[in-house]
Every structure is written in structure tokens, then in C-alpha cells.
């Protein structure tokens, strides 16, 4: 522990003397659930607000970011606390890399870097202010418009002309042929900002090889396209589609088509649209997602699972700004049973095979470098915290009182 703290201090000190624009920042969040009815009893918990269904075992996150920049080179480093057996430990976060800019129009990063140009989330309500129950987090809103590839080992960004960027990033795959690094675990993307109109981007994400029904190796990938409309005052509208390159391969029933290296779950053909409209003192949020293709629970005579059904998920939220200091946050989410099932790691999973819904009402106190939230949250069909067992899923409605502090420096 002493060594680690010493290391951090040494980094801060040496950075101060070696780099010009050195910054040390911090971001911290703890969500306390003093009262949580899990359908069985009232319990308490504490965690990051994205800790999942069992928040009692972790205790929030405190994070330090070190950055050093000159005009032609720099570094990023993130250190954070995490729970471990017998207490807490220090771990490294996603961005830990060095970069150079050999030309004005080129940035080359090596280390652990998120390839995230054009990243598209739709986040609001309980995602930021309450406990992220199922249907308000992960595949329901993060990366939903346009994905990142997290923890790449190299990333090259080109900006050859104004408003245009091209990004190529990927992961080193040990003990495999190089094409795995440069194709199967890589992404190539490009984006263009149309001044005064919007922002368009598209990308190809390579995925690990899979096998078809004959047992032959097949290459697969995911094509994504997205557009943000920015020309209407006070309105932000963002839409995106994700299309697997090889539908046939999905038929092997093994759920091979996933981009788990990007931190996401299994992704079928999917379209999403998110919107935010500012009408002072209100801010309206909306999100709608459709999975056009899902895999059925049964197989045909050839042992192949059929594609059927369309899964839906979405949310509506309204923020009401009482004054500069206080905002009332409201949020309602719904996800259909089909939509939830596609997120599971295998068809046989019994967890979350019903439609889920959740609602949140809370008060946010906005400080210059912190937000203090107190709210009330309802979750239906096992979407809430402390519902890890199938038995818990029998309870239709749970509630909790999240109290959350987020602060940054």
C-alpha cells in the first residue's frame, strides 16, 4: 500500500517537473441504499451506482487521473480504488497510455487506450442520479448509438481536413497471428461534422472468429452508423444502427457474435434513437431501442435456432430545474422480455427473461464540483438491486431510497 501511494506521489512530482501541462483530476461516486425492499425484506447496501444486483459488497469508487500534455506528446494515467478481500485496493483504470503527434493531423497512442471517437451514449435520470437498475444501464444506454472499443493497445487518429477524423485502434492478441490484432480485435471508424447541421460517423468493429454450422471458421464483424442532428436550437437528436456482417454465423446457437472486448454484451441487429430537448426550466429526455433480430429459445430439426421477434427498450425522463442549485429528476424505463433475453450470455439463462420496468424521482443538489442526490426508486420484475437469485425474480415490485454523492476535482 505504501509503495503504491509512494508511486502516485512520485508520478505527481516527476510529472510536475517534466511536463508542461500536467493535470491531476479526480472523480468519485458512492451510492448508499439505506433502505431497499427487495421483495423479501428491507436491507441496506452501498456501491458505485452501476454495481449491479448486489451492491452491498463494494463501496463506491474514488479515482485519480493524471495527464501530461505538450504540443507533440503526452500521457494519461488513471488509478482508482476498488473493493478486494479484506478491504480496498488500488487498481488501474482504462486510460493508461502515451501518445505522440508526429504531424498536426496525426495522433498515435500506445498503451491502454479507449478507441472512442464518435462514442454515442444516451444517458439521463437514474443513470447519473440514482441506482442504475436493469434497463437504465449497460446495453440499454451506454454505447447504444455508437460503440467504443475499450482498452485497445494501439490507436491512430487522423484529422486530414477540418471536421473529418479517421480512427484505427485495436488490441494486441498474444500468441496468435497478427491479423487477430489488426482485424479481429480492431475497429476502423470515420466521422464528419457537417457544420451547422450535424455529425455523421460509421465504423467497422472486428470480432473474434467463430464457426458456422459446418464447423468452418468464419470471420465476423459489426458495422455501425450514426448521425447526430444539431441544427435545431435546444434539441439534440441522435440515431444509430448496428448491423452484424454475418447473420448466418449467428445460427450456430453458440452466441458467438459479441463484442465483449468493448465491454458490451451480445449485440444483434439493433437501432436506437435518443433525444434531449431543453425547454427552460425543463429538460426532456427520450430513448427508444429496437432489436430487430433475436434468437429463439427452440431449435429446428437441423439444430439451428431461428430468428424471431423484435425486442424493445426505452425510457423517458424529465428534469425540472427549480433554481441554479436544485433540480428534480424523473425517469421511467421499460424493456421487453425479448430485449432482455438477448442480453443474456446463453439462451438457457433463467435470469431476466421477463419484461422489466423501473421509475425514479429524486432531488439533485448541484454544487460547483459535486452533486448530492436523494431519491426514490421502483423496479419491477427483478430489475432492482439485491435480486441476484432466480427466487427473487418472483417478486414483482421492489423499491429503494438511493442517496448518492458524486464529486470531482
Amino acid at each position: 500500500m505504501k509503495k503504491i501511494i509512494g508511486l502516485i506521489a512520485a508520478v505527481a512530482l516527476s510529472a510536475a517537473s517534466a511536463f508542461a501541462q500536467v493535470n491531476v483530476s479526480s472523480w468519485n461516486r458512492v451510492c448508499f441504499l439505506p433502505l431497499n425492499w427487495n421483495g423479501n425484506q428491507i436491507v441496506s447496501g452501498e456501491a458505485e451506482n452501476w454495481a449491479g444486483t448486489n451492491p452491498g459488497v463494494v463501496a463506491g469508487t474514488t479515482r485519480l487521473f493524471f495527464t501530461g500534455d505538450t504540443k507533440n506528446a503526452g500521457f494519461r494515467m488513471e488509478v482508482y480504488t476498488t473493493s478486494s478481500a479484506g478491504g480496498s485496493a488500488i487498481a488501474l483504470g482504462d486510460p493508461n497510455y502515451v501518445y505522440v503527434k508526429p504531424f498536426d493531423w496525426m495522433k498515435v497512442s500506445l498503451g491502454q487506450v479507449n478507441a472512442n471517437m464518435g462514442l454515442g451514449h444516451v444517458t439521463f435520470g437514474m443513470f447519473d442520479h440514482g441506482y442504475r437498475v436493469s434497463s437504465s444501464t449497460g446495453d440499454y444506454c451506454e454505447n447504444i448509438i455508437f460503440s467504443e472499443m475499450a482498452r485497445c493497445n494501439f490507436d491512430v487518429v487522423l484529422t486530414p481536413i477540418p471536421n473529418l477524423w479517421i480512427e484505427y485502434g485495436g488490441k494486441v492478441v498474444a500468441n496468435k497471428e497478427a491479423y487477430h490484432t489488426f482485424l479481429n480485435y480492431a475497429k476502423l471508424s470515420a466521422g464528419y461534422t457537417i457544420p451547422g447541421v450535424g455529425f455523421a460517423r460509421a465504423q467497422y468493429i472486428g470480432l473474434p472468429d467463430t464457426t458456422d454450422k459446418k464447423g468452418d471458421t468464419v470471420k465476423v464483424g459489426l458495422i455501425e452508423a450514426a448521425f447526430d442532428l444539431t441544427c435545431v436550437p435546444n434539441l439534440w437528436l441522435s440515431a444509430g444502427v448496428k448491423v452484424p456482417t454475418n447473420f448466418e454465423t449467428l445460427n450456430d446457437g453458440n452466441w458467438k457474435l459479441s463484442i465483449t472486448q468493448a465491454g458490451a454484451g451480445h449485440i444483434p441487429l439493433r437501432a436506437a434513437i435518443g433525444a434531449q430537448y431543453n425547454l427552460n426550466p425543463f429538460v426532456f429526455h427520450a430513448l427508444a431501442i429496437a432489436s430487430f433480430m433475436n434468437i429463439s429459445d427452440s431449435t429446428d430439426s437441423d439444430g439451428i435456432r431461428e430468428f424471431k421477434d423484435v425486442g424493445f427498450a426505452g425510457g423517458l425522463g424529465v428534469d425540472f430545474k427549480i433554481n441554479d442549485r436544485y433540480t428534480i429528476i424523473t425517469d421511467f424505463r421499460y424493456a421487453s422480455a425479448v430485449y432482455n433475453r438477448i442480453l443474456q450470455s446463453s439462451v438457457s439463462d433463467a435470469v431476466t427473461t421477463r419484461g422489466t420496468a423501473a421509475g425514479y424521482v429524486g432531488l439533485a443538489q448541484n454544487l460547483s464540483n459535486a452533486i448530492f442526490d436523494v431519491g426514490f426508486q421502483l423496479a419491477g420484475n427483478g430489475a432492482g438491486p439485491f435480486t441476484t437469485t432466480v427466487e427473487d425474480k418472483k417478486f414483482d415490485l421492489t423499491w429503494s431510497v438511493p442517496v448518492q454523492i458524486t464529486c470531482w476535482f
Partner: protein
Amino acid sequence: MKKLLCTVCMICSLSSAALFAAKEKVTAKDVYESDGSSLKEFFTGSKKYIEFDDVKLRTSTVLDSLKAREATLIYNPRNKAAGVSTYFETMFYNFLFDEEARNLIQKGFEQYKKDFEEKSLIRKASSKTTRMYGSAKVYAEFGTIKTMMSHYANSVFNVGYRFYKNTPFFVLSIESAKDEWSDAEEETRWVMPTVTLYFTLAQGELFSTDMSTDVLKIYQDEFEQFVNSDLDEEKNENKKYNKKDDDLDTY
């Protein structure tokens, strides 16, 4: 003991930047000569903006009273954005306005002055009066101390007025926005809070005048003198070196 020593080292290294923060104003020459990466700038702060004047204003506190601030007016001659640099609660902010936004501030202030003199200001409905004279875009930079401002956001601001303890104030209210610093992990959402700057009539007059094109042109011209001076020198030497010998004989 080691732990304590290391912690002290870290605090010292971080606070040194604040302790050595520039006391003197940044001039057009400083901005011209700055390459944004010298070691000196780590201790003295960024030389991105000409600091051309001070203005007094007020910002709200956690208890919603008003606190007087000594703010600095800043100008970036490279992109022609001007604005104000101030603390709000525990964070340091630069708010930068383009020409269109500055025109709105000036027109808004003129209207406020008229309404003030005619005593036609509305005492109630502060959410309406806060945006009485319109809205425009603003770019914000912020951080814990002046030498560490890595966070930034594009937002909108409202021009209007508010009453505090029966006294009217001309206000610029910069709306909350998502921090666009993109290097953090995706779950770590950073937010810029709503920041409202309160000006008395006299303070607003000074601020509005300083945001005028005529005033900013002085600093733009000063900056361009340095640019042109270097270019002229380069041109002269180029001409001198590349002149043919025959031409030189004519000297």
C-alpha cells in the same frame, strides 16, 4: 512515516502550481511567445489568453448568498473569443464568448440599463427574467486551480437579471452541461454546473464595454504587430539572401 512523507510530497508538488500562479497579467506579447508547452507555464499558468482588465462581480455560494469576486477579463487573439475568468465556489472557470454572444451581452445590458432607469424590472419570476434578453453559445473551461483546467464544455448562457435582497443584478447564467473531457472511463460522467454571474449596474457597464469590438481590437492589433514583425523580418532576410549578385552590385 513513508506514507506521510509521500503524501506531503504530492501535496507540495500540486500546491506549488497554485502558489506560483501568475500575479502579473498576461500580455499580447506573452500570448504570442507562448508555445503552450514551456515548463514555466506549468507554474505560471496558461498563456493562451490576454488578461486585459479586471471586473468585480458576484457568484452564488452553497447557502445561496452572493459572494464578491475579483474576475479577470480575457481575450484569445487566435480565435477572437473574449470572456471572463473567475472562481465559482471551489472551481476556477474561464467563460468565453464569440462575437455574436458578445453582441447579445451588450444589447442585453443596454436594455437592462433602460429597464433599470425606467424602474420596469420584474421582481418575481426569476427563471423568466434570467433569460429576459436572450440566449447564446458559450465555451467554458474549468478546473480545481488555474494551472489545472483540463475540463471543458460547450453550453448556452442566458442574459437577464435577478433580484437579490431587493437589489437588481444584471446576470449571465451559464447553463449546466456535460464535461467534454473525453479521457476518463465512460462511466465517470463529469458535469459543469449552472454558474450565474451577477453584476451591479456599474460592474455590468464596465464588463459590457470591455466586451465591445472596439476595445478588443486594441489587443488584437497589439498581437498582430508581433506576428507581422516576425513575418517582416523573415521576408526581408529571404529577399536579401535570394537576391542575385547583379542586384547586390546595384547597392
